[in-house]
């Protein structure tokens, strides 16, 4: 998208610029790229933030593989797979909301952003009210009510360690989801007021990057927590 007006005799012409162009940027493209780059730098720090958890998970899984496999089989893969699909749907509605802004459809933006929030809330609902509740009822919450089972034998402390990883990783991921829903509620408000145009939708785009990043974290948590124990052979926990 070209500037609305070329720079002429200095900034007396500023009034004919896009009103969304901040003074310290040359044009809308530069402004958009700067925001985009800044978000990616933040996401790189987020990669390392979650990376510390993934690295320590890898180490302890290598040390205590049997205990981690027992723990993994105690999780309900149906909830994990459903939640993966829910997040993928929410990523689709997010990109479609941005696309609606690019094509100037205000109502579609609002509807799609609301859908994204509802799907994010559905993910949290499934996680908190089904999964964590079941884990609690099965005495699988370390530090709260964890009870070793005789069939685990010497692996019992390592099963507990798996659940410590499970709860810390999923709760930090859930915290990111809650922050994302907070961002989306602000975006929905802005979109409803017609704040986004085909020229200016930077907040939507960079918040979308954050939302997709949180989706990617779950794309790795799902196999690492739910699948990697192997679901074949011995009867699982359910």
């Amino acid at each position, binding site marked *: 998208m070209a500037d609305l007006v070329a720079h002429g005799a200095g900034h007396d012409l500023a009034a004919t610029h896009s009103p969304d162009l901040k003074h310290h940027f040359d044009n809308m493209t530069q402004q958009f790229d700067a925001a985009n780059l800044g978000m990616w730098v933040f996401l790189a720090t987020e*990669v390392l933030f979650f990376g510390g958890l993934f690295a320590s998970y*890898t180490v302890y899984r290598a040390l205590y593989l049997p205990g981690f496999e027992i723990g993994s089989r105690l999780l309900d893969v149906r909830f994990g797979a459903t939640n993966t699909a829910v997040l*993928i749907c929410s*990523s689709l509605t997010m990109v479609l909301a941005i696309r609606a802004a690019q094509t100037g459809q205000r109502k579609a933006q609002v509807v799609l952003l609301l859908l994204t929030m509802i799907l994010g809330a559905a993910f949290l609902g499934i996680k908190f009210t089904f999964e964590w509740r079941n884990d609690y009822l099965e005495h699988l919450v370390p530090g709260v009510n964890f009870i070793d089972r005789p069939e685990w034998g010497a692996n019992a402390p390592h099963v507990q360690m798996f659940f410590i990883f499970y709860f810390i990783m999923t709760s930090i991921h859930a915290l990111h989801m809650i922050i994302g829903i907070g961002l989306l509620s602000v975006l929905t408000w802005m979109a409803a007021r017609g704040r986004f145009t085909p020229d200016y939708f930077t907040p939507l785009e960079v918040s979308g990057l954050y939302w997709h990043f949180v989706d*990617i974290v779950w*794309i790795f948590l799902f196999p690492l927590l739910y699948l990697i124990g192997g679901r*074949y052979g011995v009867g699982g926990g359910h």
Partner: protein
Amino acid sequence: MSSHVVPLKVYIGTFLGLLFFTALTTWVAFIDLGPFNTVVALAIATVKMLLVILFFMHVRSSSGLTRVVVAAGFFWLALLIAFTLSDELTRQWSPIPSSWGPGISQSEPQ
């Protein structure tokens, strides 16, 4: 602005691909592949991540500078995991000197 409107079918195709790989990885977990279950699960997760990054996060059409930042994030993650494992997985290679005293033992992998 630099961003162009991506055709709907690109988004829908990415979405269907992600759902397909989710079903595939869940299905494969029920088949005994030995150690390859882990390899396949992580490979599928990586493909899904690339789909999201390239198409949903628009890296396919982003600037070179943005791509360098994205790559740097994952490069540092690789360093983090590689150096951690190079420590953890080689601790058993040499015994603890007996002069360190009898009370010291190595952590044993199960």
